[in-house]
C-alpha cells in the first residue's frame, strides 16, 4: 500500500493551502481530487480579500502559504478597502480572473516539492483515518488525513421549487465518504448559502453604467509582490429599483427560501435579494456590482442579487435593472443547503477530538469564504504534518493572528450562520493588521522551517531596515518646546518624546523629522510608511499588552482532553456538564464558556496542579 505522511481530500481553497502547508513542513503529501482541473476553482464570486478576509490572506502569505501569491497573479482590479481609515482596518481586496487563478494555483501546486496530486474519488476512510480508499478500490495509507470537501455533506441545490442533490453546480457529491462521516456520529448542523445568476457581459449596456476602477497604486496580497502581473479592469455599478422589488415581492412564495423549501440558516451579511426586499422594505434600491469574471471571459458576476427564485422570475427581475434590460443569464442563481460539522468537535489544530488523525478544514466546519478556507487549510496542513512528523502542534493565539481568532471562535463558540471574518471579531485589532502580518507571523513560520529562502531573506532584510529606521527615530528626543520649534504641537507636560512617538501625531511624518536627523531621509519610502503605521498605534499597543499577556498565559495552560471534571470538588453540576461536553483545550477556552466564574477556573487550575503533582511524584 502506498504511504503518505498527509493526505488532503479536496482541491478547493482549503485543500490547496492545506496540501501546500503540509508539504512545506517536509511531509510527503498527497492531494486527492476528482479532477486536476478543479483545483483552485472559485465557485462563488470572483474576488479575494476584503476587510478581515484580506487580513487572513496576508497571514496565509506570512506563513508561506499560496493564496496571496496566486491571487496576485490573477488580480485584475486591486482595491485597498478603508483607505481613508487607519491601517488597522484597511483590507486588501482584488477581483480575480477565474481562469488565471485556477491555472496559477494548479501550476504552483504541481511545482511544490513533497506534494503529489492524485486524480481520484475518495470513497472511504481507513480505520482511525490512517488513510483513504479510492473509487477504484486502491488504498493509500497516511499518518493524517485532511478533509476539505466543502458543501458535499447532504448538499441540496434549490432553484425555486426545484431541488437536486449536489455540491456546487456541475460537481457530483461523494455519497460513500459522506456516509462514513455520518457514521462517526459527529455533532452536525445545517446551513445555506446563495449565489446570483451569472450574466453574459456582452449583453450588458455598459455605456450607461457607473464605473468602479481599481486603485491608482495597487496594493498586493503577498509581501513578496509589488505590482499586478496582468491588465487591470473596472467593475460596473448599477442598482435595483421599485419595479425590481415589486417583481420579487409578487413571486416570494416561489422562492426556495420563502416558499419554505429550505431549513438551513443563511448568512446575515450576505442576504438574498428576496431577504433584502422583505427585511429592508423602506429601501427603494440596492446596489449591484457587476464584476467581470476574467479578462477573456464575458461572464459577469452581479454581486448583491443572490437568489433562489425560479429561473423565469430571475430573468424578469434582472432585466428590470438599469443597464441589464437585454441581459442574458448564463447560469441561474441558486441556493445551496448543506450539513456542516459543529466545529466545537475540533481541537485548535483542526483535528477531531474523537479521531485525532482526521483534520477538517473549510466550509465543512461551518465557515464561508475562500480566505477563511485557506487560513484553515494552513492550520490543518501544518498540524497534520506536525502529527505525521512527531512535531509539536502549531497553535495560533487570538492575540497574534486573525487565524487564531477564527480557529478559537470556531472551536469554542461554534457557528450559527456561515462564519465569515470581520475586523470587529479581533479584540486586538490595532495590533493584528494586514500590514504587519509578516512581522507577526513570519518569525513563527521561519521557526517551523516552512518558508523558502526568498521569503526568509526578504523578511530578515525588511526587519533590519525597520529596526534601523526605528533606532534613528529614537535618537531624536524632544521636549515639548523643542517639538514646537519644528512645528509639532505637543501639550506642555515636560515629557520628552522620541521621534517614533512623535510620528503618531497628526501631520508628522519622516519629512517633518528629517531636519533633526538627516539619516531619516535615506530610509526607503516603504519602510518609512511601515514605521509610521507601527507608530500610530504604539500607545494603544502598550496598554493592550497587559490583556494580551493575560490571554497568552491562559492559553498556555492546557487542559488534557481526559480531565475528569466529576472529580473537581466545588464545581456546580451545570458547569461540570458544560465542561464535559465542551472539553476546552486550555484555561483560556474554559473561561469563555458561558456561566464560567473566576472561582470555577481556579478550581480547574487546582485540579490540573494536583494531577501534575501526582504525575511527577
Amino acid at each position: 500500500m502506498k504511504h503518505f505522511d498527509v493526505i488532503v481530500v479536496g482541491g478547493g481553497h482549503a485543500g490547496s493551502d492545506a496540501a501546500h502547508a503540509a508539504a512545506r513542513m517536509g511531509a510527503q503529501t498527497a492531494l486527492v481530487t476528482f479532477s486536476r482541473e478543479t483545483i483552485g476553482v472559485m465557485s462563488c464570486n470572483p474576488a479575494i480579500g476584503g476587510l478581515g478576509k484580506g487580513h487572513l490572506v496576508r497571514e496565509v502569505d506570512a506563513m508561506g502559504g499560496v493564496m496571496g501569491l496566486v491571487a496576485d497573479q490573477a488580480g485584475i482590479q486591486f482595491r485597498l478597502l478603508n483607505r481613508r481609515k487607519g491601517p488597522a482596518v484597511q483590507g486588501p481586496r482584488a477581483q480575480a480572473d477565474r481562469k488565471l487563478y485556477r491555472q496559477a494555483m494548479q501550476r504552483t501546486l504541481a511545482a511544490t516539492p513533497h506534494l503529489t496530486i492524485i486524480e481520484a474519488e475518495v470513497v472511504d476512510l481507513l480505520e482511525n483515518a490512517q488513510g483513504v480508499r479510492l473509487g477504484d478500490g486502491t488504498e493509500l495509507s497516511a499518518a493524517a488525513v485532511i478533509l476539505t470537501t466543502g458543501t458535499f455533506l447532504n448538499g441540496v441545490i434549490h432553484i425555486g421549487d426545484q431541488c437536486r442533490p449536489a455540491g456546487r453546480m456541475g460537481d457530483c457529491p461523494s455519497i460513500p465518504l459522506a456516509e462514513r462521516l455520518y457514521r462517526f456520529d459527529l455533532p452536525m448542523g445545517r446551513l445555506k448559502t446563495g449565489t446570483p445568476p451569472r450574466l453574459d457581459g456582452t449583453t450588458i449596456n455598459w455605456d450607461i453604467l457607473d464605473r468602479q476602477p481599481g486603485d491608482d497604486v495597487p496594493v498586493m496580497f503577498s509581501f513578496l509582490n509589488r505590482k499586478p502581473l496582468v491588465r487591470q479592469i473596472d467593475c460596473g455599478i448599477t442598482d435595483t429599483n421599485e419595479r425590481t422589488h415589486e417583481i420579487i415581492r409578487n413571486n416570494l412564495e416561489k422562492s426556495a427560501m420563502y416558499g419554505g423549501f429550505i431549513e438551513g440558516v443563511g448568512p446575515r451579511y450576505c442576504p438574498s435579494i428576496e431577504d433584502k426586499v422583505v427585511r429592508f422594505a423602506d429601501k427603494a434600491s440596492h446596489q449591484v456590482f457587476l464584476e467581470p469574471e476574467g479578462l477573456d471571459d464575458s461572464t459577469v458576476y452581479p454581486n448583491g442579487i443572490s437568489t433562489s427564485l425560479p429561473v423565469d422570475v430571475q430573468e424578469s427581475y434582472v432585466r428590470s435593472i438599469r443597464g441589464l434590460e437585454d441581459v442574458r443569464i448564463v447560469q441561474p442563481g441558486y441556493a445551496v443547503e448543506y450539513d456542516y460539522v459543529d466545529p466545537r468537535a475540533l481541537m485548535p489544530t483542526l483535528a477531531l477530538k474523537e479521531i485525532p488523525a482526521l483534520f477538517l478544514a473549510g466550509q465543512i466546519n461551518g465557515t464561508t469564504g475562500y480566505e477563511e478556507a485557506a487560513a484553515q487549510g494552513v492550520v490543518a496542513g501544518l498540524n497534520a504534518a506536525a502529527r505525521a512528523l512527531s512535531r509539536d502542534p502549531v497553535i495560533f493565539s487570538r492575540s497574534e493572528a486573525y487565524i487564531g481568532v477564527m480557529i478559537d471562535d470556531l472551536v469554542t463558540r461554534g457557528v450559527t450562520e456561515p462564519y465569515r471574518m470581520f475586523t470587529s471579531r479581533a479584540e486586538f485589532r490595532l495590533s493584528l493588521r494586514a500590514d504587519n502580518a509578516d512581522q507577526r507571523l513570519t518569525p513563527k513560520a521561519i521557526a517551523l522551517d516552512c518558508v523558502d529562502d526568498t521569503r526568509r531573506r526578504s523578511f530578515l532584510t525588511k526587519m533590519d531596515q525597520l529596526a534601523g529606521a526605528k533606532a534613528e527615530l529614537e535618537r531624536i528626543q524632544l521636549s515639548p518646546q523643542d517639538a514646537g520649534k519644528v512645528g509639532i504641537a505637543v501639550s506642555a507636560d515636560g515629557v520628552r518624546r522620541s521621534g517614533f512617538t512623535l510620528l503618531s501625531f497628526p501631520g508628522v511624518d519622516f519629512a517633518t523629522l528629517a531636519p533633526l536627523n538627516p539619516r531619516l531621509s535615506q530610509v526607503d519610502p516603504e519602510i518609512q510608511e511601515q514605521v509610521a503605521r507601527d507608530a500610530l498605534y504604539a500607545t494603544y499597543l502598550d496598554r493592550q499588552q497587559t490583556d494580551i499577556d493575560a490571554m497568552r498565559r491562559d492559553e498556555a495552560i492546557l487542559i488534557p482532553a481526559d480531565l475528569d471534571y466529576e472529580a473537581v470538588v466545588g464545581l456546580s453540576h451545570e458547569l461540570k456538564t458544560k465542561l464535559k461536553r465542551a472539553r476546552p483545550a486550555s484555561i483560556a477556552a474554559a473561561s469563555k464558556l458561558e456561566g464560567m466564574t473566576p472561582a470555577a477556573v481556579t478550581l480547574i487550575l487546582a485540579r490540573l496542579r494536583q494531577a501534575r503533582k501526582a504525575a511527577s511524584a
Partner: protein
Amino acid sequence: MDTIFAPATARGKAGVAVIRISGPLAWDAVSSLTGEVPAPRQAVLRILKDGEDALDQALVLVFEKGASFTGERVAELQVHGAPATVAAVLQCIGRLPGLRLAEPGEFTRRALENGKLDLAEVEGLADLLDAETEAQRKQALRVLSGAIGARTEEWRRHLIRAAALIEATIDFADEDVPVDVTPEVLSLIVGTADSLRAEISRYGIAERIRDGFEVAIVGQPNAGKSTLLNALAGREAAITSEHAGTTRDVIEVRMDLNGLPVTILDTAGLRATNDPVESIGIARAVDRARKADLRVFLLEEDQVPLLLPLEDDLVVWGKADQRLKSGLAVSGKTGQGVDRLVAEISRVLSTRASGGGVIIRERHRRALFDAEQALESAKDLLCAGAEAELAAEWLRRAVRSLDSLVGRVDVEDLLGEIFASFCIGK
C-alpha cells in the same frame, strides 16, 4: 501581569481591615501611599496619604516575590475597619496606574499558578471557593435583578448601538451603509456618559445611607449659624458669640434627623476679609460646604450669598425673632421655624436616599468610572476626526468595563445590531 488589590477581610464594621496588594507594583503602591517601602516581613506603623491628605494610620507589611501568599510581591495594609476608611484607601489605590481590583478567587489563583499552595491546601480550597462563588452569585442576583440590571441593559444597548454604527462603517465600508454616523454615535456616547456620571454620583448616596449625610449651614458672619446648629443639636456644640467671625473652623455635630444619619456642619461665615487666619477658615468653609450633600443658606434680608445655592439647597431667613418674614424663617434663639427646617432637610435627604443606591460596591463604581472615562476618550477622538478604529477601541473598552456588571458582551451582539440595522451584502 497586573497588580491586583482587594480587602482580604470581610466587609463591614470591624476593628481592623486588611487590604492585600499583589503583583509587580505592590511595593510601588506602598511607596506612593507612605513615601517609602519598609523592610520585608517587618510590620511598621505608617500614615497612608492620598497626596497631601492623610487617609488613615495603618500597619504596613510587605513580602518579597517568592516569599508571599501569592508568590508575587505582596503588600498588606492593616487599616482601621470603618467602611469609609477602607473605601477611601481602596479608591486611592485604584487610582494608581497598573493596579486594579482583584476578581473573586484571583489571589488564590495566582498562588496556585505560582506553586505556592500544597496539595492539602488545594483540597481545602474547593470549599472556600464554593462559598465565594455562592456569595458572588447571590450578590450578582441581587444587583442584576434590581435597578442596576435595567439601567446597565440600557447603557449596554446604547453603547452596542454606537459601536455597531462605527463598526459598520469599518467592516462594511464597501457596502451600502451610512457614511457619516458621527452625530448619532456622539449623542449615544454623550448621553450614556452623562447617565454613568449621574449613577456614579448616586453611589455616594448609597454610601451616605450607610455613613451619614452632610448638611452645611452657610451664611455671612454673625448670621446666626452657630445658634441654629445649637438649636438643632439641642446643645451648645458651637461657641456662639455676638462677635462676627467666631467660628473659624468647621464644627460637626452628628444627629439623627427623622431616621436619617446626618452630620450638620457649622462653617465659618462667608465674607471678604483681609485677616489671613479668617480667610483660611473661609476657604475651608467654602470647600466643605461645596462637598456637603445639602447646604442651608442662612440669610438676612437683601443679602446675596457668596456661594451660589444649588438645586435642592435650602434658603432660610435667619433671626426670625427679630423681624417678621414670609417664607422659611428660623430663629435659633427662640426655636421658631426650627421644626419646619428639620422637616425640609429630611424631606430633601429622604428623596435622595430613595433615589440612590443601585451601585453598592467599589467594584461597581470602578467599572462605571472606567466606562465613563473610556467614553470621554472616544468622544474626544470622534470630535477631533481621528481614525474610526481608535474611537471604536475606546467604545469597546467602555463596554468591557460594563461587562463586569452584566457578564460578557461579545462581538455577536454587535454584528446582530449591524445586520438588523443595515442592509449588508452586495
